[in-house]
């Protein structure tokens, strides 16, 4: 008897997370929330990688996840700094207020 959760379930969950993240990026107007949605998409990919690694019974996917987490941490550091810089200038982080350049 095997009670393990099937890989398909993980992949379905990761797809749902990915689509939620993508919709968040496209629909939200607050820079921090957009950024969180991007992180959600990255984590969806991480979940898929780990689930696939279990399915194939090897470590490559898990290793990949470590690198993705490191990259995501670097992205957070840069992203939050940029959002602070914008807030200092405009007193707002709504991306609809970012329209100094148009044409």
């Amino acid at each position: 008897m095997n009670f393990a959760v099937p890989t398909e379930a993980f992949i379905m969950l990761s797809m749902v997370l990915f689509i939620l993240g993508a919709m968040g990026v496209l629909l939200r107007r607050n820079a921090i929330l957009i950024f969180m949605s991007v992180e959600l998409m990255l984590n969806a990919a991480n979940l898929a990688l780990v689930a696939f690694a279990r399915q194939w019974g090897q470590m490559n996917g898990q290793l990949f996840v470590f690198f993705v987490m490191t990259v995501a941490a670097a992205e957070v550091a840069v992203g939050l700094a940029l959002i602070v810089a914008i807030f200092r200038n405009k007193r707002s982080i709504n991306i609809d207020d970012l329209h100094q350049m148009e044409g």
Partner: protein
Amino acid sequence: MAEFNFLQSLPSVAAALGLTILAAVILLLDAYLPKDKRPQIAYVAAFGMLFVAFTPIIWSPPAEGQVFWGGMIRFDGVAQIFQVMVILGGALTALMAINDSGTKNRGEFHLIIIISTLGGCLLVGANDLVMLFVALETVSIPLYILAAFRRQDGGRSAESGLKYFLFGSFASAILLYGLSLLYGFTGHTNIPALAQTLVSGGGALGDNVVPMLAALLLVIVGFGFKISVAPFHFWTPDVYEGAPTPVTAFVSVASKAASFAVLLRFLLAVFPADLVLEGQSIQAFWVNLLVVISVVSMTLGNVLALRQSNIKRMLAYSSIAQAGYALVGIAALQSADPTLGVSSVAFYMFMYTFSNLLIFAGVVLFSEATKSENIRDLAGLQRRSPWLALAMTISLLSLAGFPPAAGFFGKFFLFQAAVEANLVGLAIIGVLNSSVALYYYLVVIKVMYVDKGVDEDQAIAIPRPYAWVLGIASVVVLLLGVLPTQIIDWARSGAEAMQHVARLINGL
């Protein structure tokens, strides 16, 4: 797997190691040099990178190319030519930053440029999904910082940085999901092993075409953002306009060239011609998709560039169009002999790198002297600084594809590859688009040479580092235009090495 030999593996990362050491040196100099000596850091960075640019040439890869570092890096002719291109782009950018108001006297600028260049060097040889993703982010994340580098401009630079960051990280997440699906289908992160499993039908995919197309689509959308082709180009004009000009130059050449290199490698290796699922060729699908993207971005870029008054914004739309032309060469990979497509893209990116650096060096000088980025204010530039006007003319002619500058052969090779690959229609659209583009490039030349300016009596001096940038880039652009054979032969031999991998995959 062959036994690990450190000395033999070294050349493949020699450039990357050199850049790492250079970055450490710059960091120390920035921390310990007295304040009045800090401007010299730019020279250390620029000449250090010029020096490092020779390492891939001195330690050239074996003719067939070889895989190093546990399958992470593939060092072959294509990696070599793109490494040289990216490092030279970084070096000229460092020189260009010396007098720019947004970047001058800031040592950390050079540190960040070097790290981004380092990412580019690793990216062009990436042979593993992990390497590809990490290198791509090593190129991009420093550029998000650099785009927001200028502080005293009412937030335009910060705004462009945030926009670049949000679009860029969104694109990376999409790309990553595509890569994770590819890993799931095959159980490999190594690109050749992954491709082999797909072609032999040994993966988990069976004969299902839909998941494969989904993964392909995610990957192309991800790369589409990075190389700024329509319809994924929204960020380009704002980032180009708001970022400090040297950063714009670097974003438009080095990161784009590296992304094109890896896109070539990826599409050719992972989705080759004989990958057929449910009786449908995957290659036909991506070629058609790229043809559509290429036509849309050429047309959109050129038409929108026509009505720009800010020169950096005009160049942003022009770069969208140029990326569209380069995609013609990638679509031409469907030909029986993909070396033509690969080498034409390599040549095109080479000439585009130098032409774009040349024009942006001109823009830095002009906007520092006049405090304006408006094309109208270029009026009478020929009387104010004949050499500057001449250099900008050379690069504009090259971008327009006008002989004797390099752009002519760049476009010629691309369209030739397209015709060989039975994409005559695409080649015709490309030629028509080039003639539209001719208009807005020539208008700038006309403004510089014919129009009367208000302060024509005030000469614009060209400081020495800029004279070097303008000189080196003009000579390269003209040489490539007169004697293109050297570079195209180099690119062809590199392309054959890449082709060798594709044959290996198909043979097994």
